[in-house]
């Protein structure tokens, strides 16, 4: 699945970032690297999102979220 399909309050693990190298490097510098966990804080529209990773929150546009492959991190019960 891609991040734009993410649900509020759920956590996802980054699998692949399929964005132009400039944008990919920018995200990586912010800490969105492979296997990094991302929590969806808020979302609207097709997939404009507020997410949290490595202790910081970011707003990401749909053009970004739809190009990030993730898998859901199952919460421990």
């Amino acid at each position: 699945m891609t991040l734009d399909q993410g649900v509020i309050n759920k956590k996802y693990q980054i699998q692949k970032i399929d964005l132009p190298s400039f944008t990919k490097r920018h995200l990586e510098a912010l800490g969105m690297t492979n296997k990094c966990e991302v929590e969806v804080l808020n979302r609207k529209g097709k997939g404009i999102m507020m997410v949290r990773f490595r202790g910081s929150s970011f707003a990401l546009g749909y053009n970004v979220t739809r190009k990030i492959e993730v898998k859901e991190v199952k919460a421990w019960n």
Partner: protein
Amino acid sequence: MELTIGFIGNPNCGKTTLFNDYTGANLKVANYPGVTVEKVEGSIIKEGTKIHLVDLPGAYSLTSYTLEERVTRSFILSDECDVVINVIDASTLERSLYLTLQLLELGKPVVVALNMMDIVKKRGMEIDLHRLPEMLGIPVIPVSARKREGLDILLHAAIHHKDQNRPDRLIHEHDYVSKHRHHHHEEYAMVYSDKIEDKIDDIIADLKDNYQGVVNERFLALKVLEGDEEILKKFDRLKEYAPMQDEIINEKYAFIEEVIKEVLLYKEKSDALTQKADRILTHKVWGFVIFLVVMALVFFLTFTIGDYIKSYFELALNVLNEGLSNLFDYLNVSSAIKSLVIDGIVSGVGVVITFLPNITILFLALAFLEDSGYMSRVAYIMEGIMSKLGLSGRAFIPMLLGFGCTVPAIMASRTLENHKDRLKVMLVTPFMSCNARLTIYILFSEMFFKSYAMIVAYSMYVIGLLVAILASWIIHLLDRKKSANYLIIELPEYKMPDLHTVGIYVWDKVKDYVIKAGTTIFVATIIIWLLLNLGPNGFGDMQNSFAALLSKKIAFLFAPIGLGFWQIVVALIAGISAKEVVVSSCAVLFGIANASSIDGMNSFLSALNAIGFESINALCLMVFSLLYIPCVATLATIYRESKSLKWTLLEGLFQLVVAYLVTLLIYQAYLLFV
């Protein structure tokens, strides 16, 4: 002894506040990324050392991708920089350490200033301040830039470490056993896997063989492996090395995770208040409505409180007018000099100064919004709309700043990565109504629309915003080479605005406004007075003055838009120097001593009615003033930022055409239906 220290850190980490603390400077800080876009310098003397402090633009990394990163990197790499103070927001330690590791690789002495420890404590997180320097091999000093705590010890550490190019004792406990021939763990905090370290060794050997006098070899080797274009251009023989960007970045973050695991306790704790506030303020439906209400509230306060204080300014201006008039009569001063001072300078500059309370309230409100952390959320709220216009939500921040002043708003467009986006934002930002135009709305809406004045003035802001959006949309439709926009913006935590920061921001703007009144508007007022009082027949015949004769010749062009009055044409032409000059020129043109007072407005209204200038003409004047050619300062900024005279002239022409068309539509619709 002299020492140069560079302050570097992620955007919004408190660098500029720290710089202000040391230098006593009043640089603007704000709670959103991209405020410092150029390096700023200051000097102090400490412990017998003359220290040059350099505040560098905020950067998340040291690649050569963005302008800020390039400015920062080239400064640190230069011989100019002796010590680097890496300012870290302790509440975002994990992300901030990425830049720290890159700085360590540059080979310059680095001292970490761990700022915002109060937020860490408030959240319930804890940082092991003994283990962190052990793992990084550099001093880590906790400071609070806002409370001015830890400042002396931070500089002391920087002075003490100025000659230290090797790290302090590093203590790491790694699981894996390296087979690499060098034992780098004693030399560097960040040691890569054997595969990368072998490549680094190969490149360093290559550098030594093929290039002379190379310093920072390890940094250069890593940049080669990261495929850094700037470095590869300089060392083109090294292009053959296969890039390993992903491995390098992943290994850096793997080490950061190791550090965080050892030094940061309760890292999952986040600010509950921010999360609760965001649920409401960035709601998918209410977020936009709340934004409009917030902006309406800003203008409500600007009018109500601003007008209340303004009445005292008007009183003072009346006293000054009467006092000067009596003094000139007593001194038998010639009528020409009396007219120049009272009808020209005092009326023109004075009326602009009386709006100072409104301007102050507007900037106070904008400063509160910026420092609270709300501004970055606006990028998220507007992303949906902006993406339909071919722009990212981030582009809305410079546009929003345009409500304050267009000049810094145009400069803030630098934070946009895409050059085409920057030009587009520069093109539409002047449509956002700045504080200078507020003086026109207040005066004309209060004269002609009485109890509806506030609504009419607020509608100017909405019209400006709608025209900017519409213009962006049309440009997007016409743009054949559409490029995708990628919104990525950090969202700082909400916080109570800091009074000192807000004070600096407001003082900066108020000072600019007063300086402008005393310089540009003062000069423009004198020129207008001269052009209105001098003519082919000599002095004093305003109807046949140079300004009147010229304006009467071109006034017919303005008739279709409801502004075919020569006096208004003069005011509009003069207003290109600064938009407030439209108001000051009107005061001079109609000889109104205190135009913004109740008596002054009544006299002004009668004078305008006498030439056939009615409510619809006032509305047309406000709309045209909102949209037409930006002021000279804005045009100069556009030229500086775009580096294109053609683009600057095109922008001026574009705005003039848009202003004419929109005003034409309003006036002709009025004539058709009313």
